[in-house]
């Protein structure tokens, strides 16, 4: 671990004096059954070097064949990002020697990406829409994974030996490259984070990837440069590799802004290099210097023929694209009648699907939101789990609300029922029965309780009888207490008034 200390310029100060320009490359592993160029399964977590074939091991004589599903997924992504889809495109070889690349070249797309010239509208925290221009989305294969054994750091320096696992080698990737993102100003970190987050949501909505950040399904490389003013030419950029969480994307941009500002303030020039992001310390450190001399000797992959997606096929795919997250949010907000702020809270809490399913289970949108954003959100926060990971289903919330709506339980009881469901006591109905939480709707026990209460407090009974309704609340409260809250307060009121008018 690098222990170098770097002077940083305070972020707010840095963005007052410099205009940040970002560029983001996102790699997404596609969720196809097999690899990009061979029938080996594309799976996660198997024993090392078991999900392989002669092709993904780069054995002599093996030849690649393009995975048609991967092409379809790439087109889906391209269309969702408002890209043009190439009528013909090729793969190329990117030649470089590294043990995790079994052929010592990566089969990728170079000057002929399958999708290009698109854009993505990204919604920021305050609801503002920021448009990110997409340069291209291209297909390629993932590399294997090196593990460096021995030494203290797990890094290659000082390691005794290294192991390579080729299970990941050949897993299909789509790389999405933005044009320089200008005009974000001080919000650059937020834009970067929101962009990656929006992409992740899109990958999931499209069904092209599980898009699990923690598994490295989605990996971001963040380019950043500073310039004195938005009118100045672009500054020298750094590329911070493998930033693998939303929060880290935001932090990495902030850090690089502060660091580069310090370099520029000192009168130095920023070195064009790749940098490593350190999740634990929240800093970047210098990696390989990216000289222009680095030569991958790209040339068209002669073992593959061009990919020529027919226009009919592209239109077919376009027609089956699901509603994308942003459009869906707008539609649901309209249908549910939530205010902007309410909707934003729902989105940020990751509760859209939950509320949608709860509404589908019969609850009103308002009731669904009340449960998920209220009691359940508090519970999730206390237990430090995701809302969706609570042991309760939208269907159960629907049942719970139905019990309230029918008057069988009241709000207070409903919270106890919820507690029971979360404790694993079964569906709301079962909890109500097992805990005996049903509202007492039989007038007999109520009248008994009322009579006892009135008899115990004759002065209050007299006041009410004489027309002063003030003390009725106290009577109702006492009755509720006597019935352990299982009475319907409205019915108690009716019965009290009835009783007193009789006498």
């Amino acid at each position, binding site marked *: 671990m690098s222990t170098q200390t770097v002077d940083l310029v305070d972020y707010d100060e840095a963005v007052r004096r410099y205009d940040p320009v970002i560029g983001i490359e996102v790699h997404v592993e596609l969720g196809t059954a097999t690899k990009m160029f061979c029938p080996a399964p594309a799976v996660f977590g198997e024993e090392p070097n078991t999900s392989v074939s002669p092709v993904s091991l780069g054995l*002599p004589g093996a030849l690649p064949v393009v995975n048609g599903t991967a092409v379809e997924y790439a087109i889906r992504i391209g269309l969702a990002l408002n890209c043009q889809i190439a009528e013909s495109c090729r793969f190329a070889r990117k030649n470089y020697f590294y*043990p995790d690349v079994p052929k010592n070249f990566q089969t990728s797309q170079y000057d002929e990406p399958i999708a290009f010239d698109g854009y993505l509208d990204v919604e920021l925290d305050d609801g503002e829409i920021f448009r990110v221009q997409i340069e291209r989305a291209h297909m390629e294969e993932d590399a294997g994974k090196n593990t460096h054994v021995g030494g203290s750091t797990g890094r290659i320096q000082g390691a005794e030996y290294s192991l390579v696992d080729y299970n990941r080698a050949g897993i299909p990737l789509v790389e999405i490259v933005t044009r320089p993102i200008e005009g974000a100003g001080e919000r650059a970190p937020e834009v970067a984070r929101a962009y990656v987050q929006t992409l992740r949501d899109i990958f999931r909505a499209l069904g092209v990837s599980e898009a699990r950040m923690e598994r490295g399904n989605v990996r971001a490389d963040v380019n950043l440069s500073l310039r004195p003013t938005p009118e100045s030419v672009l500054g020298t950029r750094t590329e911070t590799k493998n930033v693998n969480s939303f929060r880290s994307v935001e932090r990495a941009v902030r850090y690089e802004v502060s660091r580069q500002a310090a370099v520029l303030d000192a009168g130095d020039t920023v070195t064009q290099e790749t940098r490593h992001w350190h999740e634990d310390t929240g800093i970047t450190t210098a990696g390989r210097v990216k000289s222009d001399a680095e030569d991958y000797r790209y040339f068209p992959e*002669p073992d593959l023929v061009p990919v020529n997606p027919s226009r009919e096929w592209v239109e077919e795919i376009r027609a089956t694209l699901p509603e994308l997250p942003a459009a869906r949010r707008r539609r649901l907000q309209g249908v549910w009648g939530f205010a902007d702020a309410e909707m934003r809270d729902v989105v940020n809490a990751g509760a859209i699907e939950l509320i949608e399913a709860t509404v589908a289970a019969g609850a009103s949108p308002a009731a669904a939101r009340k449960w998920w954003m209220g009691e359940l959100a508090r519970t999730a926060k206390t237990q430090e789990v995701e809302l969706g990971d609570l042991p309760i289903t939208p269907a159960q919330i629907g049942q719970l609300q139905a019990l309230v709506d029918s008057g069988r339980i009241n709000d207070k009881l409903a919270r106890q029922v919820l507690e029971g469901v979360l404790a694993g006591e079964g569906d709301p109905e079962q909890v109500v029965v097992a805990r005996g939480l049903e509202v007492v709707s039989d007038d007999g026990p109520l009248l008994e309780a009322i009579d006892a209460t009135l008899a115990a407090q004759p002065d209050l009974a007299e006041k009410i009888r004489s027309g002063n309704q003030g003390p009725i609340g106290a009577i109702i409260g006492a009755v509720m207490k006597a019935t352990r809250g299982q009475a319907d307060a409205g019915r108690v009121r009716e019965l009290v008034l009835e009783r007193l008018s009789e006498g």
Partner: protein
Amino acid sequence: MTDLTRLSAADLADKLAAGDVSSVEATQAHLDRIAAVEPAVHAFLHVSADEALATARDVDARRAAGEELHTLAGVPIAVKDIIVTKGLPTTAGSRILEGWVPPYDATLVSRIKDAGLPILGKTNMDEFAMGSSTEHSAYGNTHNPWDLDRIPGGSGGGSAAAVAAYEAPLAIGTDTGGSIRQPGAVTGTVGVKPTYGSVSRYGLIALASSLDQAGPVTRTVLDSALLHELIGGHDPRDSTSIDEPLPGLVAAARQGATGDLAGVRVGVVRELQGEGYQPGVLARFEESLDLLRQAGAEIVEVSCPHFGYALGAYYLILPSEASSNLAKFDGMRFGLRVEPEDGPATAERVMGATRGAGFGDEVKRRIILGTYALSAGYYDAYYGSAQKVRTLIQRDFAAAFEQADVLVSPTAPTTAFKLGEKLDDPLAMYLNDVATIPANLAGVPGLSVPNGLSDDGLPVGFQVLAPAKADDRLYRVGAALEALLEAQWGGPLLDRAPELEVGK
């Protein structure tokens, strides 16, 4: 009993089908022949006697059980060592793959195994098929059965010599710039480079992916047709494989053998003769044209003006692709691994030491050439320009095939030269392929058939080229010329080869 090793594959297949001989007998006869002549010829890098006999026994049993078998079932075959064979060592003639036993079969090997052909072994070759003499093998020279002091051609000198020396009736070769046809010419055997995409490349260790093509090496044109039909046809594991049925190759060979070429237009390529061609080679070529004319063919002269650039373009495209294809040989996963003698054994240094020790000079030469040609700043001038030449050559072929059904030329400019004669002169070595390279650049099929002996008493080959996917034309014209020549000679050319000194 007839010497089973002297039979053509078709005749041996007939005897097997008729029950006159067993596959075990035929296979054993060839193994005995191999044992006898290998010390002199060295066509094989590995002989798989046990596996071959096991296949032969299995075929005999299936035949005895009345099972319907492939025409060539039980006929032994040799396979060039650049084709991967599950369980059999595969080196591509290189030290860097010494001891490597592939865990899978090439598609064409699967087809050979499925059809029940005993595989006798793996044949010698120039390292990674780079060469025209088999002298660049890391495992010693193969000797031309016509004159053991001479080269058997290359890169597939082992397959051609094995067939010429009656060690195998059939062999598989690969042809990137002439590696099937030129050895065929200099050993008096038949060799066919099929249309690019006609035979699967899956399991063929790539030299230059856009040029490589596997094909048959035999003693007769009909045998080549039989083998081509067996190994050819679409393979979903090779993206460049043609998804169409092969034309009728055996039928075309049988039709040609009648000696009737009425109505066939034969184009003589002006650019593939003259300077640099031996007088004896040109004389045999002219005589063969006369025979074709007598058989009813119309002889026309065609011009392919860009063929003069073919060699130059080829030696940019081939090294470029090869430099990338050979990158995988790095000591990390299979084959040779050499750790540096001093200093740390980092991955990069192990790769360097392994490649330094594992590759021969010709391979290194071409890797360096290709790496340079693909480099930023040079790509357009070299690789880019070469691809343009390739397009021009394809157009030359298209125009020529407007005027002729097939094109013909001498296969190689000279007969077999002496071992060592051109080893220090790469350019002279490269010129051997001047007539065969254009077909690879254009992807069209080519055949070489023996058409006599030059003044030096060594065999000469006649090349037939056809449009892509019209491989049947090669077989028709090739079989016709073969029949007419053999009628003239009173038997196959190989009958005139000297008997090898066989130690009993």
